[in-house]
């Protein structure tokens, strides 16, 4: 082969050239005349009339619930033995898990296997209310279309069904809300002669005072996956604001965001607000007894102070959400709060809807529920239950009810979790010693990036 190089090489060159030309021509042709790589975004399919699957009276329904709501489902099974049920425990969409979404994607592909009733996070409704493939049917059944009476839906706390509403339909029933309010340790506050703050300015001033008088004590933490919902949602920061169904406004340079960031930066540098999360490893052991105040959701009482920090009863008290001095309207945030959805593929919509209605609205279930009910009537029963109030040092009913009606609706339920950007971009920066104010641009960039990959148009004004 190497003995006669010249003709071979020449031929090889021309061959190479031909190949190159062919390849580049092919590439151009391929690039020019082909279809778009975008996935079908078929938001109109939600509007087309909902076609239920063939109904089979009395057929068995499959229920997916998280471990916290499992006892409720089991209680229903016990009191309604005629309903055939299969109960499955799963993570319930906690901490941004996408287990349910992954599974439904696969069920949509195989055309079977969907559970009839699921407990999930509000984010789950965003994809469940849309078809995952062209011509498909959204996973969640529109409950307002003949399944649940209007009067029942109207009985939920103001704004609590907003995350369920898409294309003019209601796709879920809210199980609980997690309205944000101010928690404090009453004996400590009384002993040290501090007044419970009612405005953010007072909160900041008190935090600086505490740092001076009692170093090591904390008035809050920003280090959890959901801390931004406690602070920035309450501060009405337009971080996740859907101005139109497909247009997301994220503007972290808005004064409502920067003033909250500045306030927190001051308290962080004074060491009155921790950058380590309340729920992070070791916090309860090392600093749990040093939490003077916390700004967070209604479930902090039972799940953070009682179960996590093991604070003795009659110490922790709740106060209404903080306002900004000089502003008339108070707004607060919301940290979680699950929803129940009924599958549009269910062969027994009657039993499925019956279960979901009982779970979300009945006093029988909700009075003893682990978290604050979204259904207003059930919330009254919940607050009347001694088990839900005896732990606290004050009467929490007033602050709870007030906060439940003040949840700001400008923080939209988007197709992506609002926690990802906060925990993977902002929190590591805070841990590395950066300030919140200087991290806001990176946070905004990450939100905008996520939103674009989910098909949103992003505006920052």
């Amino acid at each position, binding site marked *: 082969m190497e003995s006669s190089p010249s003709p071979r090489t020449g031929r090889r060159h021309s061959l190479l050239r031909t190949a190159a030309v062919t390849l580049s021509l092919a590439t151009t042709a391929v690039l020019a005349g082909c*279809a778009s790589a975008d*996935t079908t975004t078929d938001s109109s399919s939600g509007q087309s009339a909902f076609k239920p699957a063939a109904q089979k009276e009395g057929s068995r329904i499959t229920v997916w619930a998280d471990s916290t709501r499992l006892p409720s489902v089991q209680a229903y099974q016990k009191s309604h033995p005629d309903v055939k049920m299969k109960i499955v425990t799963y993570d319930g969409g906690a901490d941004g898990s*996408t287990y349910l979404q992954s599974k439904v994607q696969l069920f949509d592909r195989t055309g079977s296997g969907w559970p009839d009733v699921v407990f999930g996070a509000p984010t789950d409704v965003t994809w469940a209310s849309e078809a995952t493939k062209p011509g498909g049917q959204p996973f969640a059944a529109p409950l307002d279309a003949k399944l649940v009476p209007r009067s029942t839906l109207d009985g939920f706390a103001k704004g609590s069904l907003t995350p369920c509403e898409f294309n003019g339909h209601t796709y879920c029933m809210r199980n609980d809300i997690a309205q944000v309010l101010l928690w404090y340790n009453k004996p400590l506050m009384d002993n040290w002669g501090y007044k419970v703050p009612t405005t953010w300015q007072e909160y900041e001033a008190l935090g600086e005072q505490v740092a001076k008088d009692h170093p090591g004590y904390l008035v809050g933490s920003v280090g959890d996956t959901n801390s931004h919902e406690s602070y920035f949602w309450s501060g009405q920061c337009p971080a996740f604001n859907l101005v139109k169904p497909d247009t997301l406004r994220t503007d972290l340079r808005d004064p409502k965001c920067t003033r909250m960031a500045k306030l927190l930066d001051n308290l962080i540098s004074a060491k009155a607000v921790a950058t380590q999360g309340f729920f992070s490893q070791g916090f309860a052991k090392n600093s749990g007894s040093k939490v003077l105040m916390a700004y967070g959701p209604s479930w902090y009482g039972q799940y953070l102070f009682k179960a996590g920090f093991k604070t003795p009863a009659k110490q922790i008290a709740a106060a209404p959400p903080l306002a900004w001095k000089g502003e008339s309207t108070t707004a607060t945030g919301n940290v979680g709060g699950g929803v129940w959805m009924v599958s549009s593929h269910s062969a027994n919509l009657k039993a499925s809807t019956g279960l979901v209605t009982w779970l979300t609205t009945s006093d029988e279930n909700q009075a003893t529920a682990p978290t604050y009910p979204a259904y207003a009537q059930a919330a009254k029963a919940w607050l009347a239950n001694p088990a839900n109030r005896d732990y606290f040092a004050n009467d929490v009913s007033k602050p709870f009810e007030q906060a439940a009606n003040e949840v700001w609706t400008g923080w939209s339920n988007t197709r992506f979790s609002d926690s990802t950007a906060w925990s*993977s971009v902002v929190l*590591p920066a805070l841990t590395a010693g950066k300030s919140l104010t200087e991290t806001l641009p990176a946070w905004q960039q990450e939100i905008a990036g996520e939103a*674009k990959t989910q098909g949103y148009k992003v505006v920052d004004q």
Partner: protein
Amino acid sequence: MTLLETERVIVAPSRRGTTPRREGRGRGGAGYFFVAGYALLLLAFGVFPTGYAFYLAFTNDRGQFTGLNQFVKVIQDYRFAPAFTHMLIYLVMWLVTLVVLVVLTAVILRSRVRPGTSALFRFLYYIPGALAGVASVLVWLFMLDPDVSPVSWLLTSMGLKTFAAVLAPGNLPLILMLIAFWTGAGGWMVVMYGALNNIPDEVLEAARMDGAGPWQTAWHIQIPMIRQWITYMTIMAFATGTQLFVEPQLLQTASLGRVSPTWSPNQLAYVYAFQQGDFNGAAAISVVLLAVGLLAAALLVARSNLFTLDEK
């Protein structure tokens, strides 16, 4: 070790001319039968999915041909470049550490340690590899959390007081490299030891006679003679390295989201498929990974003559 010995057993008789028996009757019948099981599984779970991935990567969810548009789309994704950069940094650290430490350890175990002790160490090194990937990550979650770690003094002396500080974005390649090395290196040490065993004693003795010390023997005789095994290890380690998924995914969950859910390319493909419902985009990423893996393998094979039969 076992691989090499088996090879010798199988190859040697056929070279000595005992082949007529094999060629005579039933050539293949039983052979095909034994190969069939693997071949079927390979077709079902290896070849078919790869073909399907190619089909998906060049079409959209309406089944239309998209040419290279899927690739253009995923490459322009703002998470694509960071994910591949993370993978690249991790790969370089992991491959260099693997090759250097594994070969060094194997040489020491072969030449400088008494056989009994050497066997014990090989066994000890191998144990972590027997744990499944998930279990080994869980072990490391304890090791890296200053609150529960048995070596928390080491972490705190490096200024890492919380788990969150340990998992700072800049530390991740190092952490993942440690996990990968801890689980994967032991197995390779055993293999390398076997490869060193295969070097005839006469060769080593000749080197000694010529005045080569242990390090000269290692550098000039032993390592060149197991070069193909080192290449083989590099190719395999490269392939597993590009498929990094379980470790960062678990760190992401365990750190309550402080690690990006799209840290590695495989995770990005997972997010594409199961959160965005874009199986075609996910397939495009997997095809890119396949291309990278094949390219690296081809390069290494060509440079090292891995598949050239040596005439001993």
